[in-house]
């Protein structure tokens, strides 16, 4: 595919491109341009799977778009600790993964694919090591942004609450109040009970709004959004871990009795082979594990489906004909819009489910004997 056809196609696509910006698929297009630009050398064909994966994993620099083959990206700080030494430098040193710096480079394959490794050539052999990597990656930067946005929103709302304690909510406050009350009444009180829900409210509210915010930011294509935060196991895993820790620290005697000596179960299931206690014990850890995987899988799946619909255009354009690509684009975009809207719903539902299940686990851990 030559450059002339591409620019022609792009011209036709411009209105659709504009719409697609509104439809939050812009980064894909940007990336696709770079892919196509790479195609000029004839080295790479459009690979939907690779492109999609590239969009949902973490990066050391924050790629925004490519204009005329020039990449517009935010360079982020790399923080490494290797062999007793700290290394700080900007991700621009890697030149988008093309070059190495101080022996560090971004691995292109293997188990550390996409991550910084330290390569030393010794005795003709290659020794690949993974340094302790605390870099401010795209996800970390997005995480910071999410935290700052959350702080701005909720500190200002809290201020409003302090000023207007006995008055009706106003502005942002009135927008958030139903959600706060929903979390309190339908999640915390329903799952934990009226006596003990108080001390879990800060965690549940933070969790819900942070997940929801990150989900929404994942749907916004431009920085500070665009990173697939809640579609990353590190993010969901840490939150699940918090839930696990809080569950365990707030558990009472009854919880552990139910775990190791479940009442109402035939003694043969407990002794001599402790089937039920083992299942219960494993259950303690599978619950947060499932929390982690559910959120990750739902958000990642949404992103993959959305990107897939848009990829169809390029698959048609590259493999059949630009006209076919054009023909299929309205359908693609329509589905893209549909999936985007669905993702808005999923963003709320998954945040809700995560919080509801966390609250249920807290409630179970604190259940009294009856």
């Amino acid at each position: 595919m030559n450059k002339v056809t591409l620019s022609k196609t792009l011209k036709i696509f411009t209105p659709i491109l504009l719409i697609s910006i509104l439809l939050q698929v812009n980064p894909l297009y940007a990336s696709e341009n770079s892919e196509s630009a790479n195609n000029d050398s004839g080295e790479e064909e459009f690979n939907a799977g690779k492109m999609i994966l590239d969009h949902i994993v973490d990066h050391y620099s924050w790629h925004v778009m490519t204009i005329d083959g020039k990449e517009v990206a935010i360079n982020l700080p790399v923080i490494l600790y290797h062999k007793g030494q700290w290394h700080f430098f900007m991700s621009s040193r890697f030149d988008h993964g093309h070059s190495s710096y101080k022996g560090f480079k971004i691995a292109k394959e293997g188990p550390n694919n996409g991550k910084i490794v330290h390569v030393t050539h010794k005795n003709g052999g290659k020794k690949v090591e993974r340094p302790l990597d605390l870099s401010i990656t795209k996800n970390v930067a997005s995480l910071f942004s999410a935290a700052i946005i959350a702080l701005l929103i909720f500190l200002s709302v809290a201020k409003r609450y302090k000023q207007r304690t006995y008055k009706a909510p106003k502005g942002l406050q009135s927008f958030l109040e139903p959600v706060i009350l929903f979390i309190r009444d339908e999640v915390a009180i329903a799952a934990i009970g009226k006596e003990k829900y108080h001390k879990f409210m800060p965690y549940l509210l933070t969790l819900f709004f942070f997940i929801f915010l990150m989900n929404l930011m994942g749907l916004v294509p431009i920085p500070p959004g665009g990173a697939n935060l809640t579609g990353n196991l590190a993010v969901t895993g840490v939150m699940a871990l918090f839930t696990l820790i809080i569950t365990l620290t707030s558990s009472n005697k009854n919880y552990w009795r139910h775990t190791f000596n479940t009442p109402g179960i035939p003694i043969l299931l407990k002794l001599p082979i402790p089937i039920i206690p083992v299942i219960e014990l494993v259950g303690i850890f599978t619950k947060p594990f499932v929390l982690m995987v559910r959120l990750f899988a739902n958000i990642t799946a949404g992103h993959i489906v959305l990107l897939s619909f848009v990829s169809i255009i390029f698959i048609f354009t590259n493999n059949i004909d630009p006209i076919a690509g054009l023909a299929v684009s309205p359908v693609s975009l329509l589905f893209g819009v549909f999936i985007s809207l669905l993702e808005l719903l999923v963003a709320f539902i998954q945040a809700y489910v995560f919080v509801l299940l966390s609250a249920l686990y807290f409630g179970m851990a604190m259940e009294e004997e009856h």
Partner: protein
Amino acid sequence: MELVNPGIGLIFWMVVIFGLLLLVLGKYAWKPIMKSLHEREESIDKALKSADKAREEMKSLQADNEKLRQEAREERDKILKQARDKQNEIIEQAREEANQERQRIIDSARKEISNEKQAAARELRETVADISLKIAEKITRQELEDEKKQHKLVKEYFDEIDFR
């Protein structure tokens, strides 16, 4: 696979950021928000309750008012009735007194009349006696002028007297 191989850095930063967010929001956002919500709900609850109470009081007040009015009405009726009774009584009494007075006047008039009548009768009797005496005197004198007649009269008187 990269997708299920999260970086340690992201885990570290997530722990730090989420932990800090939890602390800061917990202390400076959720605590005042929950407190304020609780207080507002409590105050609304209290306001509703006091409104209910006020309505209740209003109702009882109205009932009281109605009762008072009823009592006042009864009192008024009673007073009116008493007044009417009193009026009738006074009229009755006045009539009675008037009757008695009239009776008394009539009686005294009657008595007077009778007294006058008796006095007149007495006077008349006296006058008649007087006149009769004078007439008798005159007649006697005339009669006695003639001897014969005197004898005759004496004879008549003697005749009249019974000597047995």
